[in-house]
């Protein structure tokens, strides 16, 4: 069984809902961007790190979405049926994120200490790294990353849509063939992106696990956002029949897995730093536990890990939209806090305690999150609704839907929520 082309497109109700959402997203995005631009112009020192953090949050969602499309080609299964077109459309927005990267290049010396001549004079640890952390090489790498990511985003989008229109399985075979190497390339480039744009906020410090930690975190964010989006519209076709209880359970399991993996990577970095106890290593944590940042760090442990972890352990919660929606929303909110915590305190002076907390940056961070996020969401919805919401002829999708049909009478898998 597969969807008839018309059934797989957004139903009239869903289209109306998504159009309204798009209008709201554009308004919120516009307002957020105006506030952000005002901040960047008036107080660049406070605003650029905040903008960088918001950029990394949304760029991460696009990157992780591309990665999840590739992962599906590698592992298969039925969990991706309601989500695949969302991830494709979200991955497509990496091209939008390339445009949002331009302000960072303009305000480089406000965003990164290594681009600031005064810092280079005062800190020999930073000055020693200027072969790699140089404006031209940095720009070149960014261009290369975006070129690679756009190429992969194009492949997962175009070939998947090409399959909708033809019975010949060549596009799916092509996707399957590139998925393995492309996953490796995506992981490596995303890691280096994290080194360049996240880790180099503290250029006197380094951590080899940082890239993997960033990638795992963005995968968690993306699965959280996908769960929120899918559940919010799960009463409307075609999401209604694609998101069965079994697949909701799969999504809950993925959220649980990545919550644990995120905690595992974050703790690994902390443990090694703590055991070594070297001044140039611990500085990263000292900057992130002084004053209110300490409370944020504790909140990340208890509310970012333990709360969703304990809740998602229960099968009942993962099979109930009334639980999955608040848990996934919670995870996304905690992830915005974590990205802010990773980026904003970078290279701050230790010992400033409460007086030095960058309240302005935190406010601007959320303004930029809404600004970039609003535009991102509007274009995401435009891309999403331009194709059927469920792939039409992919054999894996057809097999999954056939399975649904056979087991439609059972509460275990086939039934709609």
């Amino acid at each position, binding site marked *: 069984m597969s969807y008839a082309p018309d059934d797989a497109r957004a139903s009239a109700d869903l289209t109306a809902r998504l159009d309204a959402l798009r209008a709201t997203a554009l308004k919120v995005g516009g307002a957020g961007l105006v506030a952000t631009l005002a901040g960047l112009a008036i107080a660049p020192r406070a605003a650029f790190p905040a903008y960088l953090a918001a950029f990394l949050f949304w760029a991460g969602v696009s990157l992780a979405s591309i990665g999840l499309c590739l992962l599906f080609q590698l592992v298969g299964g039925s969990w991706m049926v309601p989500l695949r077109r969302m991830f494709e459309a979200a991955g497509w927005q990496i091209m939008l994120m390339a445009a949002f990267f331009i302000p960072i290049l303009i305000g480089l010396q406000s965003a990164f200490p290594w681009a600031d001549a005064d810092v280079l004079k005062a800190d020999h640890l930073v000055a020693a790294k200027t072969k790699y952390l140089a404006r031209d090489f940095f720009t070149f790498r960014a261009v290369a990353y975006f070129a690679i990511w756009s190429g992969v985003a194009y492949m997962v989008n175009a070939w998947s849509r090409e399959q909708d229109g033809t019975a010949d399985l060549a596009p799916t075979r092509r996707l399957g063939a590139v998925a393995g190497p492309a996953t490796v390339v995506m992981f490596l480039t995303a890691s280096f992106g994290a080194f360049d744009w996240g880790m180099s906020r503290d250029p006197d410090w380094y951590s080899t696990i940082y890239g993997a930690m960033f990638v795992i975190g963005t995968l968690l964010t993306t699965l959280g956002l996908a769960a929120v989006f899918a559940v919010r519209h799960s009463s409307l076709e075609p999401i209604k029949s694609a998101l069965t209880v079994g697949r909701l359970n799969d999504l809950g399991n993925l959220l649980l897995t990545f919550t644990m993996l995120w905690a595992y990577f974050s*703790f690994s970095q902390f*443990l090694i730093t703590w055991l070594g*106890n070297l001044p140039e290593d611990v500085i990263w944590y000292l900057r992130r536990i002084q004053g209110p940042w300490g409370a944020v760090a504790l909140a990340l442990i208890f509310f970012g890990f333990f709360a969703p972890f304990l809740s998602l352990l229960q099968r009942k919660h993962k099979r109930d939209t009334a639980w999955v929606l608040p848990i996934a929303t919670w995870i996304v909110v905690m992830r915005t806090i974590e990205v802010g915590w990773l980026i904003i305190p970078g290279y701050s002076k230790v010992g400033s305690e409460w007086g030095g907390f960058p309240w302005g940056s935190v406010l601007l961070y959320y303004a930029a999150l809404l600004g970039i996020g609003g535009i991102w969401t509007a274009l995401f919805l435009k891309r999403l609704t331009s194709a059927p919401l469920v792939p039409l002829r992919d054999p894996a999708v057809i097999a999954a839907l056939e399975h649904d049909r056979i087991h439609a009478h*059972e*509460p275990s898998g086939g039934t709609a929520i």
Partner: protein
Amino acid sequence: MTAAHAEENPAIYGLMAEFDDPDRLVEAAHAAREGGYTAFDAYAPFPVEGLDEALPGLRNYVAPTVFAGGLAGGLGGFLLQCWSTIYYYPHNIAGKPLYSWPAFIPITFETTVLGGALAAVFGMLAYNGFPRLYHPVFNAPGFDLASDDRFFLCVESEDPNFDPAATLAFLEGLGPRSVSVVPY
């Protein structure tokens, strides 16, 4: 088994119906449930999708058992490290305090997994009634095919609705290959 049943039905464990394919078995289990039976079980050579929901009174306590086992393993591992590093063998390692909890976390994680895994295996065995050296269902003729290519549904005599004649007629109405008596 109630006294009344024991009198009219002294040594029967139940009635066993044999089916050719798994879907038929699931249908039969649904039918038995709708027919008011509460004590029956199904036997199949592989996990049949949908069968667990069709069977009566299936309560799965493995998950909470695993949670308890994981909790016990984690607490045990953590406290063992506290005891050994603080009281039993206090040692100055890299100038760290004796109670260095971050260093205990990897072991705590491992013992949590160990406790959870042991609880899962042994809890599953215990809830399934193992070890068990004798079970009457093996008295049913041809029951060894339950591990090959046949599917069985056994209505047990302890079911309050069990009646030898009526239950036999009911099972035969489900279209089995055969129905047989399972003696104790």
